[in-house]
């Protein structure tokens, strides 16, 4: 991922904005709403210009109530519309948890398909931006553990555009997690074509032979940096960007691990019972006899997200990934330093 700037380049935030604009242009049923998404264009400006272009009926500010926002989306989806709602930050989606877990995720199943819930719940996701408490949670595991939801997170500018288009077009509800710290990352992209597969497929971002790094969202660039650094030391790391957490692309990841024989999963969220645990469990279930070492996890610590001055200590780093790679060892010593996981 390039971080240089220049003409023809787009930030991830701009790509998201373009995806919303194009989706609204293509389909009248697509509505965008939430807190501050209208005149302000959202606190991250992802909805910038949408009200100006499509009018207040298509992109509008709601009262400040997340359960209400998601519940309104449920009713609109029942009525044939395609709501795309914004939760202002991860932790501010929690008031909507009941609506999401008990209705968004279950209404299609409840009614044997009569009430599908095509909607997108956009969530500025994870940390690394120096936000004060409640602004940097990683909440993907809550959603991924809830059957009926799809869970998607882009790591590249191109994916930001296309995965959001896919999510809006999808017949099922999608929790769309936008890595906050990548909002301002820029790439030179041509959005008329796509290089990675559709939503639901993982992508091998870098080929390698010695071990597989599995990452998603904010940790993908980190994994790529780690692979770059390892290459200098003669270690060849393959980087798999999961892109879609649910449904999970077992095929791409398992193919990689069966070949490399080693795997490190990198996730920003606290480790315990997170998505990295699922990935580690799946990989050892499916590739056990190909594995030369346990699947290790590099995750945040099992603590509430730290204050801005301390987040650096909590977040996975390139060094921690490299340390874990170094420790893809051959005995049972619980040598799990820097993984946020140990016993």
């Amino acid at each position, binding site marked *: 991922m390039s971080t240089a700037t220049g003409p023809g380049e787009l930030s991830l935030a701009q790509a998201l904005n373009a995806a919303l604009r194009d989706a609204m242009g293509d389909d009248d049923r697509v509505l965008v709403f939430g807190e501050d998404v209208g005149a302000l264009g959202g606190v991250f400006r992802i909805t910038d210009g949408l009200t100006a272009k499509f009018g207040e*009926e298509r992109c509008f500010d*709601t*009262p400040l*109530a997340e*359960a*209400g926002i998601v*519940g*309104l*989306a*449920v*009713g*609109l*989806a*029942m*009525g*044939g*519309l395609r709501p795309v709602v914004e939760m202002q930050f991860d932790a501010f989606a929690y*008031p909507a948890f*009941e*609506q999401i877990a*008990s*209705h968004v995720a*279950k*209404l*299609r*199943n*409840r*009614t*044997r*398909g*009569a*009430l*599908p819930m095509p909607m997108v719940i956009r969530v500025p996701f994870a940390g690394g931006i120096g936000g004060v408490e409640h602004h940097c949670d990683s909440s993907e595991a809550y959603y991924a553990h809830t*059957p*009926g939801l*799809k869970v998607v997170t882009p790591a590249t500018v191109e994916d930001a555009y296309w995965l959001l288009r896919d999510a809006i077009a*999808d*017949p*099922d509800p999608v929790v769309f997690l936008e890595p906050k710290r990548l909002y301002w990352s820029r790439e030179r992209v041509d959005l008329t074509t796509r290089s990675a597969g559709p939503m639901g497929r993982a992508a091998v971002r870098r080929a390698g032979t010695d071990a597989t790094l599995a990452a998603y969202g904010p940790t993908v660039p980190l994994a790529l940096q780690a692979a770059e650094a390892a290459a200098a030391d003669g270690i060849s790391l393959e980087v798999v960007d999961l892109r879609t957490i*649910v*449904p*999970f692309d*077992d*095929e791409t990841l398992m193919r990689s691990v069966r070949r490399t024989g080693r795997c490190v999963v990198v996730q920003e969220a606290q480790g315990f019972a997170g998505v990295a645990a699922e990935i580690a469990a799946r990989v050892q279930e499916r590739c056990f006899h190909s594995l030369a070492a346990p699947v290790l996890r590099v995750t945040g610590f099992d603590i509430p997200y730290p204050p801005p001055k301390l987040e650096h200590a909590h977040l996975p780093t390139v060094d921690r990934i490299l340390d874990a790679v170094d420790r893809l060892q051959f005995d049972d010593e619980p040598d799990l330093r820097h993984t946020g996981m140990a016993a």
Partner: protein
Amino acid sequence: MRLEDLLPSPEPVRFVAADGTGTASHGACPRPADDRLVEGYRRMVLGRRFDTQATALTRQGRLAVYPSSRGQEACQIGAVLALRDDDWLFPTYRDSVALVARGLDPAEVLTLLRGDWHCGYDPVATRVAPQCTPLATQTIHAVGLAEALRRNGTDGVVLALIGDGGTSEGDFHEALNFAAVRRAPVVFLIQNNGYAISVPLARQSAAPALAYKGIGYGIGSEQVDGNDLVAVLAVLDAAVAHARSGHGPYLVEAHTYRMEAHTNADDATRYRDDDEVTRWAAADPLARLRTYLSDRGLIDDEAVRTAEAGAEAFAARVRTALNADVPADPRTLFDHVYAEPTAQLEEQRAQLVAELDAREA
């Protein structure tokens, strides 16, 4: 709206006293036409018979559980009569009587309580949302659907039902607020039956009446005797007309009483006196309406017998349908989690199928 229109009448609107005689306190709403009241009577008879039948089916083990609405028929039937076919109803688990009165197949209505599937009818075809279990959550869906109706260019209205207990949930507040700010064509009908399972209204709210909540959202409100079908229908007619004509939401509180326990599994003697139940029996909505209509010559003994015979026939249909064993196929568990089962679900289904096949072999 003027401030005065946001506050309910100081006393519940009533057309018919408990003994069936007409009363003076009507609020501002006109009396519904005679034929609608007669039709309301017929459906209340049917609804009550259905309710008794469903309770009986729990004793026979044909239903897992049934929350009776005996005593609340004026609310349930009033809600249905106030709506057009193309309007939507958002019911709770207690509103099965409203659903059969709207014409839904009783076996489909009871699918949930029989344990076959979560919702047995087609919400889109019937314009009835699934009977909602998580309290108050349906009220905000109703607002969204109401907004969808408006966006789709129709003048359809949504009526959302909720209990007194449900009004304490945050979602109810958010629903009222969203409805008001967005001027959604939705009517909220609180069936205040005095209890949330065991918890009496006095522990649920200190408001002078629940209808006083409207003004805090800028929503016009009214309270009504919920055991008086004439009054319920009159007030709901006005509320629905208000919403339909683009004036936004309306809030109605109906004062009623749940004559049975919360469900057949509940033991109401733990939290209320027989005396209280007896007092409310004297306010029975069905007897009251019968007296009122026959005093006015709108029904005679023959009409009563016809209504009751119709209800008996209906109950027989319910019995037949519920006594038939509907096979529930576990293989279908994976069909509607997503539009298309994921690879993981396909594999899980294959595993289950293999297991079932092995068992059958």
